[in-house]
């Protein structure tokens, strides 16, 4: 079953109504989307949304309950071996062997892809240099910092120069400096002609900064999918303004709703309001004039552009931290929702 599926040449991944059920829990619910060749595609959602299960199905680690996907032109169910040759995976867990050195980890992984001899040594050196670990080539993986270990994992995922790279929560647990280092590396990875990256994350800033397109995943379903810019502009009120008056406005929120660019107003208490506006700076100016008109003091005023946080809140009705963690059936945590 090596027949290549008739997918469009510009599509690296085509997910076709894929679902995964663990007992009573539907971890991934009839998800479909496509990833274009050469793009960085993000799956954004809280822990337990089903991102890791989805990526594990696409990387042939977990069989789908229904549906399928075509990765690098091959069906994940019909021809998983052909898929595995063409993809690189950096799992959420650190899967490099802590009792082996960095070079040994890469060398053994290279052999799993049939890379041997001088080519293996050359590739190991190239990758260690690329991820800044050449001077730690003979250090045990267990002695590396979290950021270094993650860089080693990335190098390992690249050992066979894959067409598509899957990164599951690549910066989870890293300090800010290490996160930035990994981000830079991910940005450089796309430099290879036609390489596609699919990453999962629960960090809004990460998805915003790295991804060409983002799919928002909530409770096993994709609730929105577009470029970060388009997603943000799809939320009513491009800007979010928080303002506090002293004393309060005579008619409260009604005075604010009367302003021209204001889309919605939410009273937060203590004469504080959160306003969604199509034109942030103009609305801020109007708020200053409103305070002067009513002879009120402006205790605070802040204007923020719409973030993916707002997009997530808009599409799911809850923030990332408010996501209720579903109970994963006992004994199925390995392949459980991520």
């Amino acid at each position, binding site marked *: 079953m090596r027949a290549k599926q008739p997918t469009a040449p510009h599509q690296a991944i085509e997910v076709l109504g894929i679902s995964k059920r663990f007992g009573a829990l539907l971890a991934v619910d009839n998800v479909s989307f496509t990833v274009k060749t050469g793009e960085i595609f993000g799956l954004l959602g809280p822990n337990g949304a089903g991102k890791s299960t989805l990526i594990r199905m696409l990387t042939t*680690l977990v069989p789908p309950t229904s549906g399928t996907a075509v990765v690098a032109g091959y069906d994940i169910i019909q021809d998983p071996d052909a898929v*595995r040759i063409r993809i690189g995976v950096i799992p959420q867990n650190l*899967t490099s*062997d802590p009792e082996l050195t960095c070079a040994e980890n890469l060398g053994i992984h290279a052999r799993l892809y049939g890379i041997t001899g001088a080519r293996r040594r050359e590739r190991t050196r190239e990758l260690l240099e690329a991820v800044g670990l050449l001077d730690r080539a003979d250090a045990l993986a267990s002695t590396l910092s979290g950021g270094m270990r993650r860089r080693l994992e990335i190098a*390992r995922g690249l050992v066979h120069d894959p067409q598509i790279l899957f990164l599951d929560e690549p910066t989870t647990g890293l300090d800010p400096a290490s996160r930035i280092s990994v981000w830079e590396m991910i940005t450089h990875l796309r430099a290879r002609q036609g390489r596609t990256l699919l990453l999962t994350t629960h960090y809004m800033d990460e998805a915003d900064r790295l991804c060409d397109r983002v799919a928002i995943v909530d409770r096993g379903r994709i609730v929105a999918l577009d470029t970060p810019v388009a997603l943000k502009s799809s939320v009513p009120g491009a800007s979010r303004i928080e303002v506090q008056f002293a004393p309060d406005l005579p008619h409260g929120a009604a005075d604010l709703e009367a302003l021209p660019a204001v889309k919605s107003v939410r009273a937060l208490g203590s004469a504080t309001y959160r306003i969604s506006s199509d034109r942030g700076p103009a609305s801020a100016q109007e708020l200053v004039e409103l305070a002067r008109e009513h002879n009120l003091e402006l205790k605070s005023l802040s204007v923020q552009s719409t973030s993916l946080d707002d997009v997530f809140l808009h599409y799911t009705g809850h923030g990332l931290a408010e996501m209720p963690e579903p109970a994963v059936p006992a004994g199925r945590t390995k392949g459980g929702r991520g």
Partner: protein
Amino acid sequence: MKRALALVERDMRKFRRSPALLFASLVLPIVQLIILGNAFGGNIKNVTMGVVNLDRGPESVGVLERVRAVGANARTFLPTDYDDEGAALRDLRKGVLSAVLIVPQHYSRDLLERHQPHLALITDNTDRSVAGAVGAQMSDLVASINAPEVPPREPAQAALDVVEVYPYINYIKYLLPGSVALAIFVTAMIGGGLLFIDDKSRGLHEGYMVTPITKWELILGFNLSGVIKAILSGETVLVMGAIVAEVPNFFQPLRVLELTLMVALTSVALIGLMFFIMARISDPLVPRAIFGVLNTLLFFPSGAVYPIAGFPRWLRVMSACDPFTYAVHGLRTLLLKDVGISAVTTDIFALVLTSVLVLSGATLLFRRTL
């Protein structure tokens, strides 16, 4: 105190949620009690003994009747008649028999003529407990010939000469095959089972499974690495043990080769068994919990420390199903008896069969996905 009780509560909750630990805590002592309680000090029974009657006179028939009476009642030995002394001795060396009783020519005439004829008992002294039990039973039998319940007017006297077929074998030599098999088993447990589960729980297998490696290559790789470690371990204990126990002629090339084959077959069978048990296990606590039970179930019924002939029937059945038994018997035969590989064909067959069964089962159980 309240803080200490918090730790107690934590541990009690974990204890209740770890069935493997509970299993090991409660079952291991019971299994040990039953197995060890029956594996040591039992009466030796059903020892295979060839009987060669070169006399065929009336007194020799009396000896044979007494031997058969023991076989039917006390069952210390199970007599088998041989016409040819040479054939009986060959079977003794092959391990088919554990003893051979020879009634010499003119036994009846010599007995009646008061020439004190000598019965010859040749024992396989690689197992001193068995040889001792047969010797003691035969001494009693000869005493009964010499002192019948109704004494004759002129009592005749027979004598028993016990001949050990191999040079003196002390207990350290007897124990050595079991120690070699145990070294292989411990390596299979730690270097095979424990490492496999630990790597699995640390997510290292996930790293392999996203590569193009096939299910067969994974199974072969895991087992082959375990077998190499087990062979190294078994060979080291074998050589060191043979030197310490002063096994004669140990370094004959053919003998070393035959012993290495037996070590390799044992390694494949025990590593395969471990892989079969661990194929679907993910909890790192499970192998730690069951290894004690496994050790008791496999090592002690194998005849490594006490002869199987001294076990009750149910334990002998268990012993017959235990691959350890064949490993110990094969190694003991090659180490302590001056015989070739043909004497251990049953052991080789049993170990190969075990390997085929457990590896087939493991292949069916092993999943390439998470």
